[in-house]
Structure formats: C-alpha cells, structure tokens
C-alpha cells in the first residue's frame, strides 16, 4: 500500500493502519531499533511502541516521509530504552557508538552556560552533512543514526571495515572542527 493510503487509514482511525505499517515498514523499523539496541526482545518492544507512537501522532501530523517519520520515532524510543540499558551496563554496542561520538564533542567552550537546543544541534549536523562527500555521509548516517556495525556499514558501501573505520575517523574529526567553528555547545 502507498504511504498516502496508510496515512489515510491513520486519519480514519482504522486499525488496519497499524497492520499495513507493520507490513510495509516492520523489517525496516526492526533494523533501525536493532542498530541501537542489538537485542531482539528490546527491539520488539520498541517497534511495537513505535506503531503506538505513530497512532498517537497521526493525526494531527502529516509526515512528509512516513518511513523516516517512523524511523525517528523508533530511534527515539530505542535511545530511551538504551538509557535504561546503559544504566544497567547491558549495551556494549551502544557504548562503542557513544565512545566514538565523543570524538565529535568540541573541546573549546566559549560559553559553558549555554546549552544548545537539540534541534539546533541537529540543524548544524545537517549543514555539515550537506557539504560532506556523499559516500562519507552515507557511512556516517549508517553508523551513527542506524547503528550499523563497522562491518555492516562497510558492506553497504562496498568497502572494507578497515577503510570504513578510517573514513569515519576523518568524518568525526571534521564534525568536531565544524561544531567548534560554528560555536555550538553540546
């Protein structure tokens, strides 16, 4: 079913919206959540909650891309779940991702009292990504949004995990410089 049809079902409050969403995007959402959580049991919960989240959000919202809208809900829920899991020291994969993202945190702090809104940081990241060479951008998003392992992200781009690791280190360094230049505080 086309996305417009599924959104129409959400607006009509027809429960078929959920089954159609699961049918079309279930596997994809599973991957989004799995990239972060790496646990089937947790993924199942998160993805089910994603459908509920979409049900509550549409209407009033009308997503431009249903797929990406769902991915954002799923990722948000997965991160919430991850907070709990990391507290319980159960998420080694996520630890690795966060540890790599620490490389992007600006060293200098012009105004420590200022904390930027998440949305503003996101916009800056988008500006950075828009100027990035497309293959590096794909690699970055695959690794840090979708939580792919190095091997998975490398396979997606047809390069070796070693090359992926090296390219990602360059992108992280560039992002750190960019955030510093933009004066962004995390």
């Amino acid at each position: 079913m086309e996305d417009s049809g599924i959104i129409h079902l959400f607006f009509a409050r027809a429960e078929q919206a959920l089954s159609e969403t699961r049918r079309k995007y279930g596997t994809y959402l599973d991957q989004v959540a799995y990239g972060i959580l790496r646990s089937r049991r947790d993924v199942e919960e998160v993805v089910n909650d994603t459908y509920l989240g979409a049900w509550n959000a549409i209407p009033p919202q009308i997503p431009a891309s249903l797929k990406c809208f769902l991915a954002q809900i799923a990722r948000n829920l997965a991160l919430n779940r991850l907070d709990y899991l990391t507290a319980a020291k159960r998420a080694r994969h996520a630890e690795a991702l966060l540890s790599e993202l620490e490389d992007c945190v600006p060293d200098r702090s012009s105004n420590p009292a200022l904390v930027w809104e998440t949305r503003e940081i996101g916009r800056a990241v988008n500006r950075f990504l828009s100027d990035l060479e497309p293959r590096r951008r794909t690699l970055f998003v695959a690794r840090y949004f979708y939580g792919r392992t190095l091997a998975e992200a490398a396979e997606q781009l047809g390069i070796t995990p070693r090359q992926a690791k090296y390219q990602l280190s360059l992108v992280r360094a560039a992002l750190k410089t960019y955030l510093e230049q933009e004066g962004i505080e995390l």
Partner: protein
Amino acid sequence: MKREKAKRLNRALQEIDDAYLEEAAPRASGKPRRSVWLAAAAAVLCLALILPAALSRHGAGGLLIAAPDYPSMAPYPKEDSLFFDSQYTAWSRDLRTQTHQPAGYADGLEAFFSQSIPVLLTGEAGENRVCSPLTVYMALAVSAELANGESRQQLLSLLGVESIEALRAQAKAVWNSNYRDDGAVKRVLASALWLSDDVDYVPETLQRLADTYYASSYRGEMGSAAMNDALHRWLNEQTDGLLEEQAADLELDPRTLLALTTTVAFRCKWVETFPVGATKQGVFHSPDGDRDVDYMRRTMSDVYYWGAHFSAVSHRLEDGEMWFLLPGEGASPEDLLRDDEVMAFLLGRSAEWENQKYLTVNKILPKFDAASDIDLIEGLKLLGVTDVFDSNWADFSPTAASNEGAFFSQIKHAARVSVDEEGCAAVAFTALIAPEAGMPPDEEVDFILDRPFLFLITGQDGLPLFTGIVNRP
C-alpha cells in the same frame, strides 16, 4: 561530562534530514541496489475465434493496424548519476501516477480470482502448474467486448461486474496499476488481436480495445507463414523469450476469424537478497520421489502466518511480493486450493490475518523453474462460460458483421515462473525439521519448502499476477 555531550549529540542526530536517512537506509525499498536474485515470470493466453466457413485468402501477414498508446514513464534512476535526486523524483512521481487508480477499482475481483484460481491450477497430479490470473482476467475482459447478448453476460458474471461499462473502467484501472516499464522492471499486460484480412471488422470495437484495454491489432492472411511468424515474434518479444517453446506451438488456423493473445512478463529483484554462497543442495520430497535441489537461505525478522492447514511467509520484491504457502503434513497444495480459508488468505487478507506473528524466520526456499500449458475451455465451462464455445449460441456481433457460426475453438494459457540466484557457493547446510502447519514457536521458526507448495506473486496493488503449484522444483 563528555559522555553526556556525546549522548546529546546522539539525540541531535534524530534531526538528520529524511533524504540522508533514505540514502543510508539499510534497506530502502524501491531504491536502486545491487542485487543478484531475480524472479522471472511470463504468461501467454491465446484465444482463437474460429469461423467455420472457409474464406478465400489473400494478402500478407502481420500488418499492424492499431496500436495502443502506452503511458510514458521516467526511467529508473541511475545509482551513480549526478542527477540521481531529480531522476528519482521523476521516476517515483510517474510510478505514483500509475498506481493511484480510483478507490475500490479492484472490488469484486476477489470473487473471480477465488473461483478461477482453483480451476486454473487443477491438473495432472504431481506436475507443476502455473498460471497468471491477471492475464486470464484481461483476456476475458477483452472477450466480453468482442461478444454480445448472453455470450457477453456470462463473461461479465464470471468477472463479477454488472455492466460492460463497469468492466471497462475496472480493466483500465487494473491495466494501469500493473503497468511498469522503466528500464528496471517491465510488467505489461499486453494484448494483441490477430485479424483475418478477409473479414470486415467493426472499427469502433477495435478502437475501444486499443483505448481501454491497450490492445494492438494486426491484420493478415490467417494460416500464412508470415502471420504465424508475426505472432511468434510478438509473443517472444512480450514474454522476453521465456515462453519460446510454448509460443512456437501456437499456429493460426486458416479459418480463424480472430485470435487474441494476452501476455505478461515480469522480472523483479528481491528487496532482501539471499546471501550468495548460502545456497546448498538438499532433498525435496516430490510426489514421484525425492530429488536434490538447490535451497537458498535467509534468516530475517518477518511475519509468519498460519492457518488450520498451512503455514506461509512472503518475500518482498522491489515491485511486489511473492508468497509461499506450505501445506501441513499430510495435505497437498491441491487440498489448499479447496480450502476457503487459504483462498481468503491468498487474496489479500493477510494484513488482517489473525494468525500471524512477527519473529525470526529461517527461510529455506528451493530454486525452481516451473512452467505449464493449460487449455482453459473446460475450466471456463465449469465456471459458467459456455455460449462463446458453442457455434449455435455464440454472439460476436460487436466484432464483425459476418460472425454467424463463430466460436472460440481454443484458449491456451502458458505460464512460467523461475526463481533463481547467481553465483552460488556452498556453506554448511544443516538439515532442519520442517514445520507443521500451526502456531509457531515463540521466537524463531524454520520455514522450509521441501515438499510441494503453493506460491503467489502479487504486484504493488496486491492482485495475483502469477500463482502456481510446485511439485518438482
């Protein structure tokens, strides 16, 4: 402190643009991808309308006199093109235009398919059986245009429509929703009329067939080598040569008033490829004994369905879906065809199916190449279409003024579906226990098609493009 900042940055990644998410999505359906797995299918249906009185013959063969105007579609975008984004936008816009047909256009078709599929797939025990329900639908819809009176009414009743006007609207929508020719996927419900140059046909009818059913018309000397060659060339072109053998058998009898050929060819990539190298030989329990076949494997999170006498999974195609139904132990695919529950499941109710579970599915599917050749006359008679086969009752007045005594002498339907993988290499293949039909275990299920099974290929609109029984992969 730094960890907290990394977490904030991680949260901020939530705001990454949709376009970049699509770009890096692990599996973006409909987007270009390298793929090695293909499903190919083709079907041809040929109706011959015979006029028993011998006609004087003259003229050459295969002159195209009417051609439909197929919709134009932007080509499938090139993955490495600098203009990928604009190409993708144009392509997806055209695809949406084709698939957005009037709401409810397919209403009523379910009854036709649920009646006709069991008849189409009934045949000799132990043989593979393949058909294209949509091709049969389109051929019968065109036949209804050619006929009148009770002859037409019987066809309309079988197709589940109240009037010829309703059929025209529906057939046009069905044709369009299934049309795709963008360089990556070719799926065209193509029809052609083969007309004798001795007969004066009703031009309005031919024009309507071109406008509404996208049918071409060729005219020439029936039975001549030139006309038969033109017919074979057209068939092979439309079916990508997949049915060359069956097409070669079709000859136009000199007494033929009109022949109608309807075809569909379909080649499509899987969205989730089966890993190269995971394919391994295993035993398939055919009715005539065990045989070694190549099994492809993929483990994935997916929906597993079950009913009283079957279990089922689907595998997504970039432009549709392929369903596999495994009968429970002791049951045959033919038994499933007689089961109303199975037919309801097959014809689009899977989304609301109560017995479904999302879990880890180990899909173990045989590669196969199944073809069959079916004469539909007896089957259609069973379904209540009788007059068009009887020279005393048939009425083909919309086709030609001199139609007295004309009747359909043959309806041959040939179809072939092959599912294949390139570059297989061996890795260890552990024998797994085939599941019984019924509720699956909690977390993981093996779905092994190692005995006769039923399959169905649907397009984007969920209508049955191909269905079949595989007894011998």
